[in-house]
């Protein structure tokens, strides 16, 4: 058994007390991490847990503020990806980081091509590449451009490049997110093989099944801290999830179930989506949203929550499935069209998809409403200021005045201003993707209260959040996604954190074992 080996050997990679701060955020607060030879070690955590920061520190993209790193017993201090590679740490990123136009062979050897008499030796480059991919049981014409290979093969080529240096540690950062089941299985075969050859592999993913299929150990991060380091066989799914989202299981169970809420099946259906499918985004999602209800969309990161929202808002087109609005089949082609139908979408990616950074809070708030009115019917300055003042007061947006550029506001206040942007347009369906992330507790409560009063006025809300507690408290109905498909739906009194947890974990009982 591979698991027994580490106890004899000293660890391959040891990180102690790694700290890293960015302006306003402590991304890593004293994280320890240990990787052994012959080990596949999963690194788990929700958004903002610090996974990607840790990986970037390890690969020299960021420099740590403090802490020590040891590889094979000696101190290392990588300052660039080049440094890390030379030390023996190679990384394959989620987005394949190779050059699509160049050949497979060249991608493997770029930057360390063999030369003779000042000339690159193309023959040798190809031979070396063939050897490197043969090690991965891959057969293809290495002279082909990389872009002619499927993403799965590109991923393998990236691994081949990583191994072409004498890598001792291989980091796979969400390598499976664009692969299908068969491709994932191939990758796992390869990972096991490399492990048995003596490599230490760090595996970052948010697919639970995959973690259990291939990992020996699991380290869980939450809010920049290490929650713990467990042998995969000793950690049940439900324990894993509850540690990731920071909910103690016993605590969840002691809570009463969902509060009794009026069952809303009698209400009119606003949106009905069936069989939504989009390659690399969602596999099979059904969703019904009735007028005046809050539908919670629960699931782990990468389960297809945001992807579903984007399809409903016309940003991405589904490959299959249909969307009916007010009983009529609609093909949503653009956000503009969705807005015209009375939809609103507050993105989880506030910075690139939400705020207009250099425009004032006022302008950010009126943007959608003004867009609906068209360019000729400008809201008068007075109307704009009144609207801004109204929502600044209503949502308690902390800003010295409405004319401040929104980028100077804190994240939570930016979020509230974006909420105001959509409220001002009076949508029939408001899609809120992680609206409470980075907001203080008081503001969260206010937003929940607001959601309730909005639905009382007839607005429907699709509420996406990683905070189970919030989903339970706010939703009339909860749709649960796992691995990009809808797996369960809870209504009214069925809604409880325990029930959601066990659905996500894929067990039917709410307690482990």
């Amino acid at each position: 058994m591979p698991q027994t080996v580490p106890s004899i050997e000293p660890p391959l990679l040891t990180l102690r007390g790694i700290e890293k701060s960015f302006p306003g955020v402590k991304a890593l607060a004293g994280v320890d991490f240990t990787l052994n030879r012959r080990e596949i070690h999963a690194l788990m955590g929700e958004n903002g847990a610090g996974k990607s920061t840790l990986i970037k520190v390890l690969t020299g993209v960021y420099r740590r503020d403090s802490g020590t790193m040891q590889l094979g017993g000696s101190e290392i201090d990588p300052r660039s990806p080049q440094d890390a590679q030379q030390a023996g740490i190679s990384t394959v990123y989620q987005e394949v980081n190779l050059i699509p136009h160049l050949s497979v062979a060249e991608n493997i050897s770029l930057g360390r091509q063999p030369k003779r008499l000042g000339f690159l030796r193309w023959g040798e480059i190809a031979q070396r590449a063939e050897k490197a991919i043969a090690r991965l049981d891959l057969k293809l014409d290495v002279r082909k451009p990389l872009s002619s290979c499927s993403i799965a093969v590109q991923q393998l080529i990236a691994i081949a490049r990583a191994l072409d240096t004498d890598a001792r540690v291989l980091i796979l950062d969400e390598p499976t997110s664009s692969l299908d089941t068969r491709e994932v299985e191939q990758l796992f075969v390869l990972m096991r093989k490399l492990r048995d050859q003596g490599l230490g592999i760090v595996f970052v993913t948010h697919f639970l099944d995959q973690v259990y299929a291939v990992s020996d150990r699991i380290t869980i991060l939450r809010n920049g801290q290490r929650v713990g380091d467990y042998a995969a066989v000793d950690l049940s799914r439900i324990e894993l999830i509850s540690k990731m989202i920071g909910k103690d299981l016993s605590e969840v169970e002691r809570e009463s179930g969902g509060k009794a809420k009026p069952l809303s099946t009698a209400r009119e259906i606003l949106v009905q989506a069936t069989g939504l499918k989009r390659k690399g985004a969602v596999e099979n999602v059904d969703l019904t949203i009735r007028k005046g209800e809050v539908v919670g969309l629960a699931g782990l990161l990468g389960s297809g929550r945001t992807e579903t929202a984007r399809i409903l808002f016309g940003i991405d087109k589904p490959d299959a499935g249909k969307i009916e609005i007010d009983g009529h089949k609609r093909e949503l082609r653009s956000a503009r069209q969705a807005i015209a139908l009375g939809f609103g979408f507050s993105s989880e990616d506030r910075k690139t998809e939400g705020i207009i950074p250099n425009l004032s809070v006022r302008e950010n708030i009126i943007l959608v409403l003004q867009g609906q009115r068209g360019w000729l019917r400008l809201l008068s300055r007075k109307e704009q200021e009144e609207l801004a003042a109204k929502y600044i007061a209503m949502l308690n947006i902390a800003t010295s005045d409405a004319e401040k550029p929104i980028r100077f506001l804190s994240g939570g206040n930016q979020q509230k201003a974006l909420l105001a942007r959509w409220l001002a347009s009076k949508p029939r369906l408001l899609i809120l993707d992680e609206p409470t992330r980075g907001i203080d507790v008081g503001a969260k409560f206010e937003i929940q209260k607001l959601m309730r009063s909005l639905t009382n006025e007839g607005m429907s809300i699709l509420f996406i959040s990683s905070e189970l507690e919030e989903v339970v408290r706010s939703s009339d109905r909860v749709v649960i996604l796992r691995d990009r498909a809808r797996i369960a739906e809870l209504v009214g009194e069925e809604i409880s954190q325990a029930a959601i947890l066990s659905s996500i974990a894929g067990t039917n009982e709410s307690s482990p074992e």
Partner: protein
Amino acid sequence: MRITAKQIPIIATLAVCLLLYGTAAIAFHDRGFFSVGVFVNFFIDNAMLGIASIGMTFVILSGGIDLSVGSVIGLTSIFIASAMDRYKLPPIVAIFVALLGGTVFGGGMGAVIRYFGLPPFLVTLAGMFFARGAGFLLHLESVPIDHPFYNALSEFHLALGGGIELTASALIFLATFIIAIYLAQYTRFGRNVYALGGNEQSAVLMGLPTGSVKMRVYALSGFCSALAGVVYTLGLSGNPSAAVGLELDAIAAVVIGGTLLTGGVGYVAGTLLGVLILGIIQTAITFQGSLSSWWTKIAIGVLLLIFILLQRFVQTRKLRTTAS
């Protein structure tokens, strides 16, 4: 062999080149368009543009742009002429200083782009103004060159037999072309230029020295421009207003030569074809007689449009194939 998407532009270039040449050869066969002499003249007449375009090819391959090439040609030519005229510098020294100066000037722009993250478009725009102004400061008008060495150089002809002769400028052009192919295909620097233009972020994560590649690309373009300036002086004068707007022709030659303006895809040989295409159009219009010179500009514009749209098409197709 299967044709891949990235080869579509260069194949189109070759097709356009053959088509133009064939059409002109048939249309003007009575006036001897289809002759080795006319063909060799393409290289002689377009040596200056060709050398500058080769430098531009590397810049565009790396994902940048260099607007300063025309001005640097002007500056180099007037520098050489006035250095020999006023300070009696030996021609070899003047040429050496000019080439070094052009390289340093280009490298300097590259450094500003690298260290301050300014857009190449603006930095080289400033470079363009600066070099042109500096040229005029040296001398306001054209300065003739009269020196035995220079006269000999400009008279020099390499007989290829059959009455076909290559001038010094054509030889410099061909030498630059061969060295450029070596650089692009057989050195790590060249491959890093492709990687940088293909995807800068990936190139960084792959551990490639992207910063220094960026700088060296502009230095190389500066060197090529200065060399083109030297070729200009083989006409036995230096002129501060030489090669005004040549950067546009150079960019056009590179794009028509099948290099993607976003970088990462293209061949030095394509640029040679691009320069030839521009030369053929110009010569054909001269041969035709009644068509006027502005048709050259319109034709270049139309070709640019076609190739840019072709590039868009290739890119979107690529996106689709990678997505599925």
